[in-house]
């Protein structure tokens, strides 16, 4: 039973029956899906149910079009055995390869031995691939293990403390992370759940976060998404088609060092709690002053259209857009991929909600750290608080069937 699909209608088969997905299904069977990657036409074939190619020079889930849902998990490594950890990375890669193509893990969710639990947990059976992407990153603490100290990138230092931080250790850090994005939340949760299960005994989940309602876009969408404060977010974000800007601001170059990370990126994750109730009691004028854009159209102060070039000096000195803009930060530009989150209420009846900020950059020192320091005076700080934080080095993409997540870091020859 190398392929559970022979017996049971699989997500892949269902996709094939859908007609439009037929070619895709065939590609998946050959193990080489090639749809909707950065640099291609971003929207071609990337309907809500399609598969995003797992193999490529860069990991999917960075410059590929943003999906609607997120399940992000940070893990700690519990094994001291390097070979065991490498085996896990290979098993994870294979599971990710299957799940992103809409196929179940291992021998599937049913039809196996009745007295043993199935390899796949089954809740994604019958669902389409839903543009699932799985993206792995390595935290600074990983490099204290497995004799990796010499391979730790200089830029991969724990983030410094920023003004106003109120970090919860139980929502911060991690030896590695997996970002699962999909258009169907069940598909994203299924992916993290199955990876966590494969990982038991070698890694443990340190913390995780669910997200909904993408708060930025990596495609030239007709409409820019809004954050929970009701403002458009990500108007000027880097698009997956802008290869020059990606090379300049997002992908780690060969000369940036170290070699193993070339083609990768750095991911900053911040859980930003929003004080929803006080914000909602704030006058419209103050809300717009805080951001430096109007609430309806999203136009910068003094302009009329969302995409008009902002005139920073027209904004209040502490306006968020003014302080965060590349012009105020020596050109620093991040690729943002954040999501809104709501984890119910906080025990005081207040919405436990905010922005799960995810940003990719070529170097966090000249990227997020540069910008976040400049935001110390941000008027928005009265309404938000950073409560979780993590930084990861995101290795380059898995090239082909024989490749695996982290090979360039863990292989001697790389």
């Amino acid at each position, binding site marked *: 039973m190398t392929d559970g699909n022979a017996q049971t209608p699989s997500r892949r088969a269902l996709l094939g029956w859908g007609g439009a997905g037929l070619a895709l299904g065939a590609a998946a069977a050959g193990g080489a899906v090639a749809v909707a990657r950065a640099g291609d036409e971003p929207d071609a074939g990337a309907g809500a149910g399609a598969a995003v190619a797992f193999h490529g020079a860069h990991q999917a889930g960075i410059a590929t079009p943003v999906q609607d849902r997120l399940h992000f998990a940070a893990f700690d490594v*519990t094994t001291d055995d390097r070979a065991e950890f490498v085996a896990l990375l290979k098993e994870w890669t294979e599971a990710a390869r299957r799940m992103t193509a809409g196929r179940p893990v291992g021998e599937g969710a049913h039809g196996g*031995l*009745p*007295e*043993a639990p199935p390899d796949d947990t089954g809740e994604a059976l019958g669902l389409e691939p839903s543009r699932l992407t799985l993206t792995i990153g390595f935290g600074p603490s990983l490099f204290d293990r497995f004799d990796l100290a010499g391979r730790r990138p200089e830029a991969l230092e724990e983030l410094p403390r920023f003004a106003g931080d109120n970090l919860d250790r139980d929502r911060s850090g991690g030896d590695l992370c997996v970002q699962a994005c999909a258009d169907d939340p069940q598909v994203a949760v299924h992916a993290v759940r199955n990876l966590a299960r494969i990982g*038991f*005994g070698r890694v443990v989940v340190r913390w995780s976060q669910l997200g909904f309602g993408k708060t930025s876009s990596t495609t030239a969408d007709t409409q820019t998404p809004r954050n929970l404060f009701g403002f458009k977010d990500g108007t000027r974000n880097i698009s997956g088609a802008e290869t020059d800007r990606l090379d300049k601001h997002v992908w780690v170059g060969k000369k940036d060092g170290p070699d193993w990370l070339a083609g990768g990126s750095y991911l900053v994750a911040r859980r930003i709690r929003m004080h929803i109730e006080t914000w909602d009691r704030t006058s419209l004028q103050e809300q717009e002053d805080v951001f430096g854009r109007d609430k309806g159209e999203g136009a910068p102060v003094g302009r009329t259209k969302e995409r008009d070039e902002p005139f920073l000096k027209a904004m209040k000195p502490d306006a968020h857009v003014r302080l965060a803009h590349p012009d105020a930060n020596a050109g620093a530009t991040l690729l943002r991929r954040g999501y809104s989150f709501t984890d119910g209420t906080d025990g005081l009846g207040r919405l436990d909600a905010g922005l799960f900020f995810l940003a990719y950059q070529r170097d966090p020192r000249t990227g997020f750290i540069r910008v976040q320091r400049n935001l110390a005076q941000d008027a928005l700080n009265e309404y938000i608080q950073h409560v979780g934080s993590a930084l990861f080095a995101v290795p380059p993409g898995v090239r082909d069937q024989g490749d695996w997540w982290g090979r360039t870091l863990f292989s001697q020859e790389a």
Partner: protein
Amino acid sequence: MRPARLTLLTAVATAAALAAVTGCTEKGADADGDRVIGVTATDDTCEVSTKEFPAGHVELAIENKGSKVTEVYLLFPDDRVVTERENIGPGTRQRVTAEVKAGDYRIACKPGMRGKGIRQDVKATGGKAVKRDPRLDEAVAAYRAYVQAQADETLPKAEAFAKAVQDGDVEAARKAYAPSRIGWERTEPVAESFGDIDPKVDVREDGLEDGQDPATDWTGWHRLEKALWQDGKIGDREKELAGRLITDLTDWQKRVGTADITPTSMANGAKELLDEVATGKVTGEEERYSHTDLVDFKANVEGAEKSYALLKPVARENDPALTRNLDKQFAALDALLDEYRPDTTSYEFTPYDKVGKADRKELSDAVNALAEPLSRLAAAVVK
């Protein structure tokens, strides 16, 4: 504590054990229709197409022509389940397979999924004599002896606990409480398979059924635990309940030897013990007044380790990577638990309310690391 689920587990395990006997090797070769038994169920009949069939791989082709949902069982003469299929809706067909040895059986339909069912005697004849690995029979026998020994050793400890309660000695009763539970906790899946005993001796207040009154219906260890630790006093009711606990545990001691034990029920029982730890002990719910959760925790792990040790010779041949991993994870969890007792020859563990959040997570992580591979032990035994 959850009789319904355990009943099902036992049934599945039994069917699996039978499947194990022949390794399911004949599945594909069974083109002969002899071994397909048609079962036609209605609301008041249960017709079978043949009452005699060759031993080996058999298939029940069930059709429900009645108006009620039904379930169909293949049973041993003593009512143990060979295989079953539940939830067969009116007008639907279902198939279920099993490996059977030569001998007498019964097929039962249960319209409405209630009662003893409508039964037909059937017979499996001739066929190949099915052989099972004698090491597995030895494992089952050794485990049965272990279960009996645990019950035998528990009783005097429980009597000491009951005596302290009846003497009105709160301090002595508190000391005797956790040790009196160790044997039960080590063999919990078997103990729980007696659906009538478990709710009398080991139920927690929130485990009472709808309509039961805690004042009159709650009995057993945890009721006394609450009196000893929360109320801090012993009254006439507690003295009476201490006596009842001994009566119920004596019943357990007498019947435990008759439990249906198979290699797969042992393997899945080991996993069940870790599930008990994961859902009740690691959260501190089980011993919410006495905080002796780590004693139960240790006992659950020891019981799981016993099953595993007995099955290991066979499992190691079938899946050496799995047993290597299990050896490692058992050792890791045992070492972690030892950090919570100053003396590894005693069962005096740190009270669980003194175990911090980060340490509880570490314990939970270690349980997950063991329970996940342990869930594959049954497959390694029946391979």
